[in-house]
C-alpha cells in the first residue's frame, strides 16, 4: 500500500514527532463528505495517543468477528478462533473473505472498500478496521 502524508487533514493537529500515516487509495478530494465508504487505512506502527481511534480493539468486537468467521467457514466448536488467527489458516479463500466482510458490514452497519476488505488477513485486523469505521460513522 502506498503511504502519503497529507498535511491538510485537520484532525491530526497537534501531532507528536511520530506522525500517523494515512494511506489514500485515491488521491482525489476526500474530505468533502464523511461517507464511510472512503478507503483509507491507518498504519498502526506509530500512533499518537491524541487521535480518537484506539489501538486496542474491544474484546467484544473480536468476539463478534470470530463468531461471524466461524459461521462463514462452518467451523466446529473446538476450532478456536482468536484475535491473531489468520483466515487462511482456517482454509478461507478470497470468496470466503468477501462473505465474511459482508457479514461484518451487516453486523456493524458499516461499508468497507473492497480493496481493504480483501486485505484483511486476521480477526484482529478485521476488528481494527471495523472500529475505525464505526468510530468514523458515529463521530
Amino acid at each position, binding site marked *: 500500500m502506498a503511504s502519503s502524508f497529507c498535511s491538510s487533514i485537520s484532525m491530526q493537529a497537534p501531532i507528536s514527532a511520530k506522525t500517523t500515516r494515512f494511506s489514500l487509495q485515491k488521491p482525489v478530494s476526500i474530505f468533502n463528505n464523511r461517507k464511510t465508504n472512503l478507503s483509507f487505512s491507518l498504519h498502526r506502527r506509530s500512533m499518537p495517543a491524541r487521535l480518537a481511534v484506539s489501538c486496542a480493539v474491544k474484546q467484544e468486537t473480536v468476539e463478534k468477528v470470530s463468531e461471524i468467521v466461524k459461521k462463514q467457514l462452518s467451523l466446529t466448536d473446538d476450532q478456536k478462533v482468536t484475535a491473531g488467527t489468520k483466515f487462511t489458516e482456517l482454509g478461507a479463500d478470497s470468496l470466503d473473505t468477501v462473505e465474511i466482510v459482508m457479514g461484518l458490514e451487516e453486523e456493524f452497519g458499516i461499508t468497507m472498500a*473492497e480493496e481493504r476488505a480483501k486485505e484483511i488477513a486476521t480477526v484482529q485486523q478485521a476488528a481494527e478496521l471495523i472500529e475505525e469505521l464505526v468510530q468514523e460513522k458515529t463521530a
Partner: protein
Amino acid sequence: MRISVMSQLQRSFSMEFPSLVSLKLPSPMETHLWYIRPDEVKSPSLLKHYSQLLSPSEKDQVSQLRGDALKKNALLARTLVRTTIARYQTNNAVDPRSLMFKKNIYGKPEVDWQNYKNCNIPPLHFNISHTDSLIVCGVTVHVPIGIDVEDKERKIKHDVLAFAERFYSADEVKFLSTIPDPESQRKEFIKLWTLKEAYVKALGKGFSAAPFNTFTIQSKAETKEEYSLCKTSEMTASSLEKTNKCDREWKFALLELADSHYAAICIEDDQASGGAPMRVIVRKTIPFVEDELISESKLL
C-alpha cells in the same frame, strides 16, 4: 503398482524417486492446465517424498495451517507447482527441490531463475488455485496467466444478488438479475466469480488494481464459449470519465473440471493469434506417478 515400486526404491535408500517425465512446452496462446485430486493421493511415502521437495519456508507455511486436510492440500499445491515447472525444462535440467520462488512487487508469485542464468530457460508463467477437493496449476509461455477454481456446488451464504450488487459491476448485476431460477443464478454467479478472480490474478497487481465493480466480464454474443472483458470506468489523468472500453488484451476460458468444478483461465493476449479462442490442454496428474490427458474438458 507404481506405488509399490517407489516404496522399494525408498527402502533401498535410493536417492531419487522415479524421475519426472519431461514435458513439451505450451505453444503461444495455449494454456496447460494440470490438476490433482487430493482424494487420489493417499500413500504416506509418496506424501513424505513430496514434503521433501518443499523449501523450509513452504514447510513452515504448511505447518501453520489448521487440520490435516488443509496441510495436505497445501503440500500438494506446492508439489504440483514445483514438479510441473521442473518438467518443462529441457533434459530435466532442473530439480524441483532447487526451484526458487519470489513475489513481484504486488505479491504475485513467480519463479526466481537467478541460479539458472546460463541455462536455456523458457519464459514460463504459472498460477495456481485450489479448493478442498481440487488443486490446479495453469502454465503458459510468454504471457501472464491467472486461474481460479470453485466447486460448482459451492453455496453462497448471502443472497446472490445482494452480493453482486455489493461487489460486481452494474452490467453483471443486470445479467444475474435476469436469471429466474435461483440455482442457475447461483451457478452464473460462481462462474463470474472465477472469471473475475482469474483476471485479477493474471493482472498480478493486487486487488486494488482492479476492484470487481470496475470491470465487466460477459460472454460474447456470437459464440457462447468466449468471454470478453469490459472496463466500466476508466480514470484518465484529467478527469473521471466513464467510458465503456472493451479490452482486447485479455483472453478468457471457462471450463468444467473433474465434473465438480468451474475453472476460469485468463491470459494476456499477444494479439498475434487473430482473435482465435484459447487452446487449453488439461491433464490430471499425480506427481511422479502418472498423468492422464483429459480430452473431454467441457468449455463453457
